[in-house]
């Protein structure tokens, strides 16, 4: 047990130690370990008020927008008789899989002030001004919100579903009108849950990186995460300043997530009973088609439109809004497959993701089991450590890792090993959360009954525990695989010239070669991920069927 805790602690805390060491290093430059410690680096942050201000504006605007998207769709889908409710509910999670990076690339093609498709169309019909500017702070917030809205939706609809409809029915019985019930009963009861979602989303937005990188940096618009990347990758790098920024960002995010945990663990409100209720549904009459359009529009803007835009752009020699037969080509796809670097990066990503997912499932499976089912002392600490990386923005964590492994006696820096270690650490919360969910659902007595029947630990593991956990383990494998293929924040700092991976390569292509080629690369990545998910889905269904038909 002590070794497990120690191992996880090293993975999680070792980079954090170096982050703070660098942040507090005020000694001679380029000398490690530091010759003097102080807080001067943090004072220097005040020299960059625009970065702090930009971060605040973008984060607040994006959080508000995302909550608005999430709340409205959650209300429509849990409380009204909107048509095609089940389909819409499934579609609402699609934006999460489309990823903010893809969205940023697509919306850049759509809304760039000069060349954006929407502005091209606008100019053609209505004059010379650009209609929208996606590279403005509000534009960046819009794209961030589109993709985080899906997360807000999942969180808020869970709160709305866990509310006992009898509470609302009681109001109706006492003579309260629909709107009175909504204002006086429903909203106050879901408020704590929505507040929790708000804090969680705000923390995620603070640490988000890809949208601001793609849309902001060309116009020298920086938020904290992109500024950190900028300070580390410029020449000469400004390590101490980046570290101080990272440490401050981590502190704020940590505090917010702590607040979130505290809010959600305090069971002061009656609504969340862990029981799933069938909420009362309001009959909206013909208005329900309007509500349908609202949700459909959100899915369209955050999922269908970006993918369609990328496809439209990737198929043209030069991406323009108005299609011409002579302009269409498959060259960009051909090019993407023929460039050695791209092909290698793609294969590297898939290999690395497979290894990460396989080791990750075993590791997080073991951790979940220890945390939830063992009586070993120290499992509380273990849970805390395992969930810790969630509070650290990837780019900040990658910075700590870079700084840590540079001085590590083993030559892993710049190799796949450092990426593997980084992925295993940053995706630990994802794996532990997914598998814990399944372990928690598993009635303890299922295993105990095998025990009473006289079965040994291995026999039970083989016949009861493993088969029952299999769907959860496979789901965790898939989630970690997909997350690894798409990983940007950590990879962009940690990959070396011989360990290129896909997502940073896409960003590099965006900045250094054509947007059409980038669109093609992004689409190829999406197809790879989608194909994996489909194949995996079929495979697991086959497994499930075999388990059922077995004698």
């Amino acid at each position, binding site marked *: 047990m002590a070794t497990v805790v120690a191992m996880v602690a090293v993975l999680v805390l070792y980079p954090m130690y170096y982050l703070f060491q660098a942040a507090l290093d005020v000694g001679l430059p380029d000398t490690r370990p530091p010759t003097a410690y102080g807080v001067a680096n943090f004072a220097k942050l005040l020299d960059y008020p625009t970065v702090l201000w930009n971060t605040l504006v973008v984060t607040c605007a994006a959080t508000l927008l995302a909550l608005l998207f999430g709340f409205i769709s959650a209300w429509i889908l849990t409380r009204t008789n909107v048509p095609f409710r089940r389909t819409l509910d499934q579609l609402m999670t699609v934006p999460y899989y489309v990823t903010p990076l893809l969205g940023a690339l697509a919306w850049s093609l759509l809304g760039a002030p000069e060349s954006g498709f929407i502005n091209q169309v606008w100019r053609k019909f209505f004059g010379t001004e650009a209609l929208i500017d996606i590279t403005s702070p509000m534009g960046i917030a819009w794209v961030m919100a589109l993709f985080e809205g899906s997360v807000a939706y999942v969180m808020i609809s869970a709160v709305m579903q866990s509310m006992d409809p009898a509470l609302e029915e009681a109001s109706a019985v006492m003579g309260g009108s629909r709107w009175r019930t909504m204002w006086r009963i429903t909203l106050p009861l879901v408020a704590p849950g929505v507040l929790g979602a708000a804090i969680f989303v705000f923390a995620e937005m603070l640490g988000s990186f890809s949208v601001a990188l793609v849309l902001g940096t060309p116009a020298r618009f920086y938020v904290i995460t992109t500024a950190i990347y900028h300070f580390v990758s410029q020449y000469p790098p400004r390590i101490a300043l980046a570290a101080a920024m990272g440490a401050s960002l981590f502190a704020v995010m940590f505090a917010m997530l702590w607040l979130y945990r505290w809010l959600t663990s305090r069971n002061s409100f009656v609504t969340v009973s862990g029981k799933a209720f069938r909420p009362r549904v309001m009959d909206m009459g013909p208005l329900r088609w309007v509500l349908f359009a609202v949700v459909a529009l959100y899915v369209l803007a955050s999922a269908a439109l970006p993918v369609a835009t990328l496809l439209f752009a990737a198929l043209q020699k030069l991406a323009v809004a108005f299609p011409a037969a002579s302009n269409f080509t498959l060259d960009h796809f051909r090019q993407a497959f023929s460039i050695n670097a791209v092909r290698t990066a793609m294969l590297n990503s898939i290999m690395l993701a497979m290894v990460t997912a396989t080791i990750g499932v075993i590791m997080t499976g073991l951790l979940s089991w220890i945390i939830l089912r063992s009586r070993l002392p120290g499992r509380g600490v273990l849970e805390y450590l395992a969930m810790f990386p969630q509070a650290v923005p990837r780019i900040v964590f990658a910075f700590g890792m870079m700084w840590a492994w540079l001085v590590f006696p083993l030559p892993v820096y710049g190799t796949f090993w450092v990426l593997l270690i980084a992925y295993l650490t940053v995706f630990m919360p994802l794996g532990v959360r997914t598998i814990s969910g399944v372990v928690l659902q598993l*009635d303890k*007595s*299922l295993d*105990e*009954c*095998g*025990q*009473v*029947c*006289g*079965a*040994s630990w291995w*026999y039970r593991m083989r*016949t*009861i525990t493993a*088969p*029952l956990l299999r769907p959860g383990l496979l789901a965790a494998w898939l989630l970690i695989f997909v997350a690894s293929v798409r990983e940007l924040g950590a990879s962009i700092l940690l990959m070396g010239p011989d360990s290129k991976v896909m997502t940073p390569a896409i960003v590099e292509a965006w900045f250094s070669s054509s947007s059409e080629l980038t669109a093609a690369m992004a689409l190829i990545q999406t197809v790879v991920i989608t194909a994996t998910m489909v194949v995996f889905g079929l495979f697991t269904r086959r497994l499930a069927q075999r*388990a*059922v038909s077995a*004698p």
Partner: protein
Amino acid sequence: MTTTMSNPAPAIEVENLCIRYGGVTAVENVSFIAAGGEQLTLLGPSGCGKTSTLRAVAGLETPTSGAIRIGGQTVYDNRAGVNVRTEQRGMSMVFQSYAIWPHMTVFENVAYGLRVRKHGGAALADKVRHALDLVKMGQYAGRNASALSGGQQQRVALARAVAFSPSVILFDEPLSNLDAKLRSEMRIELRELQRRLGVTSLYVTHDLEEALAMSDRVVVMRAGAVEQSGTPADIYDLPRTAFVADFVGSANLVSGDVVASDADRGTVAIRTKDGLVVHGVTHGRRVEQAGTISIRTVHLSLAAERPAGEVNVWPVQIMRSVFLGDVMQVHVLWGAQELVIRRIGAPLNIGGEAAFLHAPPERCALLEASG
């Protein structure tokens, strides 16, 4: 299953069992013996430690101290440092949640214990079929376990528990998730089955009727300790404490100063604050200066005319009658205290009416002075 007949089932002995979780004591100094072939029930409200005790016998819970022996063999003893693992104790158990494995068929669920014991082939199929027939689930063998109703799952859990011919079966509130009608049916079936198999069983429930109907002996538990143990009739007729009197069926408790007692004949009389005298029996319990007597609601009778020459006859005021279907519940004012009477027969319709209340002295049991 015939082997258990020739081989008498083993006794379960629990001695000074203590279970603590951190600073909380769940079970304290619990001792009892379930003789071979006997059904012993642990009865008590939720949180009284009955389930913890059962799980300790199963080996699913590690006690803090005490000893547990099965058929004379020590499976747990903290002083001797013995703690036999659950899977080596050779018992069987029916769980409250049934714990039917959802990824297996009904057949595979029932066959599990046999497969663990390396049975196979036709003998295994035979035993599984036999167990399923016992619970009338024979035609469901091929069914997927996740497609069963609650009652069916309960039956499969039972079949699984008996399939490998165990000689000790533990039951953790196995009927609590069933509806009332099914529960009373299963109660009788379970009892029949237990008798037929001749196994020793330890049964946990918070349901009084279940305990009285199914057990050879009942151990009433409260706050982690044994409150009283005895046959169902003993427990019902002679509650030892106010808690048992109240928990095991409805009882009227009356308290007062002891005004007379006869140790040889085992009788006692108390006078309440209102000056009413109640004669009762001691059953060897120590008589102190004051005492409390328990009178079951069904042992009280009402009459319009004063019954001639009997002790324990008091004039009362009828306050209200409540129709409960099988019985009529009458509330009367007895001195300043309200007593409850349950009787069969025509409803008494008049509130405020005077009547005479009678209780046979042999049905008025003195309680032990509780701490």
